[in-house]
């Protein structure tokens, strides 16, 4: 196993820091307005059809690029612009990145901003080792995990997330945040997220609330007997 220089936070501290960040998300503390929403609306993401990378969309800093690439491995999406190397473009439609995975990790209220570079470094250290053992040549202009092809990102993530693997809990949390951003818009009030057409909730077809922001399903039943009950059912509907 690769060891780390002592000056860096210990992995245990990383884990506690990462999970403790959830504590900061207390009711009322995070207003919907405070959460960045630009990436929540897929239509607003500029796409350069000519394949030229707009200057404003140059490769993000290595930490963001790495965390985005990891989130994209969990819930893959389409590239934001031609020449997007961070999102692998392995699947059509928006993925965890567009759904706000990195916004969720970077929320000031979450308070783990300072730990993210170390997390990304851990991922990249493992990516380098993976490349070395699998004979992959990595472009030096990109963080190692970003430089891996999607199939290799997937294989490596599978290794990192396997029960018993070193530091697995850290990677599980990264996976959990990526999925939570996509499946639940965990950084947004759900009703607000639906109104903003959050790409993850839209992708899974999460139903919309009523005008008061509450869900109700007046039509909810097929309305007929669809099986016979067990013959030994007791009074009140219990098993014997």
């Amino acid at each position, binding site marked *: 196993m690769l060891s780390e220089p002592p000056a860096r936070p210990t992995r245990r501290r990383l884990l506690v820091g990462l999970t403790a960040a959830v*504590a900061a998300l207390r009711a*009322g503390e995070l207003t919907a307005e405070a959460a960045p929403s630009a990436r929540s609306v897929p239509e607003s993401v500029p796409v350069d059809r000519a394949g030229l990378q707009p200057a404003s969309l140059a490769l993000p800093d290595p930490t963001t690029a790495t965390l985005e690439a990891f989130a994209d491995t969990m819930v893959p999406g389409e590239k934001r612009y031609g020449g997007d190397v961070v999102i692998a473009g392995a699947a059509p439609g928006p993925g965890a990145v567009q759904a706000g995975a990195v916004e969720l990790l970077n929320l000031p209220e979450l308070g783990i901003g300072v730990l993210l570079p170390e997390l990304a470094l851990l991922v990249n250290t493992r990516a380098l080792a993976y490349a070395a053992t699998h004979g992959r040549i990595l472009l030096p202009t990109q963080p190692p995990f970003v430089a891996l092809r999607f199939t290799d990102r997937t294989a490596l993530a599978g290794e990192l997330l396997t029960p018993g693997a070193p530091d697995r809990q850290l990677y599980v949390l990264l996976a959990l945040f990526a999925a939570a951003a996509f*499946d*639940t818009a965990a950084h947004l009030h759900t009703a607000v997220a639906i109104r903003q057409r959050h790409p993850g909730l839209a992708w899974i*077809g999460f139903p919309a609330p009523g005008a008061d922001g509450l869900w109700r399903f007046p039509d909810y039943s097929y309305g007929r*007997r669809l099986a016979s009950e067990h013959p030994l059912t007791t009074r*009140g509907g219990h*098993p014997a």
Partner: protein
Amino acid sequence: MSVTERTDVLVIGSGFGGAIPAYHLAAGGAEVVILERGPHLTAPDFTHDLRLGSYTRIVDLVQGDGITVVAGNCVGGSSVVYFAASLRAPSFVFDRRGSLGHRLWPSTLTRAALDPWYDRVEEALPVAQQSWDQVPYPGGLFAAACARAGRTCNPAPVAVDLARCTNCNWMLNGCHFDAKRSMLLNYLPAATAHGAEIRPLHEAQTIAPATTPGYRYRVSYTQLDAGDYRLPVGVGAIEAKTVVLAAGALATPVLLQRSAPLLGGVPQAVGRYFSGNGDRVSIADVDEGKVRDLLGLERAPGIPYQGFPIGKPIGSMSYDRLDPATAEFTRFSLQQIYFPGITDLLAQATDTPATSWFGVRKKEMRARWPSWLSVLAMTEDDNEGVFGPPPPTGSSTRVATSLCLSTLSYRPTANTLRGWAAADAEARAVLERDGLARVRPWSENAAGSVSAHPLASCRMGDDPATSALDERGELRGHPGLFVTDGSAVPTSLCVNPSLTIAALAERACPGIVESTAEAGVRARYGAPAPR
């Protein structure tokens, strides 16, 4: 230093196990104080929201080694966040022998013996029988699939006021419409009406002998910050003549472990024999065309199903595999259930375990989310969970609002694995027939096995070597210290456990009142079901 207070009865935890004795003791004339670790929220606070910071205030995700458990953390305990399926345990459960090879339940406890206590609880909640036209689409679909596969299927009995229920499917957040019959609507208000005092954000830490003559125990507690449960904001101690420990199956044994040196030891079964109720969840990826063609269902023109997020989370279940004549570890119930999106992570899209739960195929599967159907098997496990040494405070290390690390480790034995394999095979036999759906259990890679039904970590029984409580629910060797929560239940139940936990708590009450009277309190037993 704070002054030590005194009360007749101290109850630790306010779920089914705490609320029920609190009511009977208060109604019987005893002075009752309830310490509850979580906050006191009510219907207006229960929002429809998946944002971190909403439901995470009242639900804990407790990660052990090989298992993750979901539990409530608020006044009312898990009854506030539960899904309200209210089942009596099948008769054979009480005769279970497990791998120890002897009866695990007290010989006095049978289904027939417990039925009168089940009756009381059902009256108090009350439990409703859903008619078929009250079973939501997913339950209907599951029933139709069962029928087509030659199985039976029942509407699940639920502790829900069906007239008030909006079928919103937000039960995990607490019921905004007060339709779900949690302890907030019956036993707890009835207890406070008789003078019981509930103290939220009070976490009990140790139980020790009292120093005041006439009092038996001294419980120390920490007051927790309402905004960050990791921060203590005060300490105190209360002496009581009787202590009812009902902190839940994840917390009760840990409190006793920490208290063991103060109490001069606790039975060795404390913190052993934990059961996750054999919980096993699978996701079926349903083919809408087959729902129409094979089952003849259509919920709206052109829409056969697409009903995953609609309804009450639990609609129907099959009792076919609860056959007492079959071998132990092969019996289970299979229940249609809905879990909110935070668990979507666990669904498997392929048969390659290492990568089955993420990536391209998983995203494709997410696009069919409205056509998912999930089923929960509750099997016979082997009570193989064991707690390590207790953390410095509380029952686990809270690293965030709702994320806790526990010393619980759970390594399923061959017996438990046999039960899960049988349940998986049955789920496939019902739901994969003629290509209706593709069924896979939740991935165990992320969280180990997952249970919402922790049990048995401080169980009752006749054998002192393998049970911590006698058949009255009293901790062996510690008169006046009773345990009445899920930890007292000796084995997995093959059905959802709340009604059995509640019935056992009702059954323990006469003995707790008697013990309290013996300690000099003028208390009587006999209060009617709360109204």
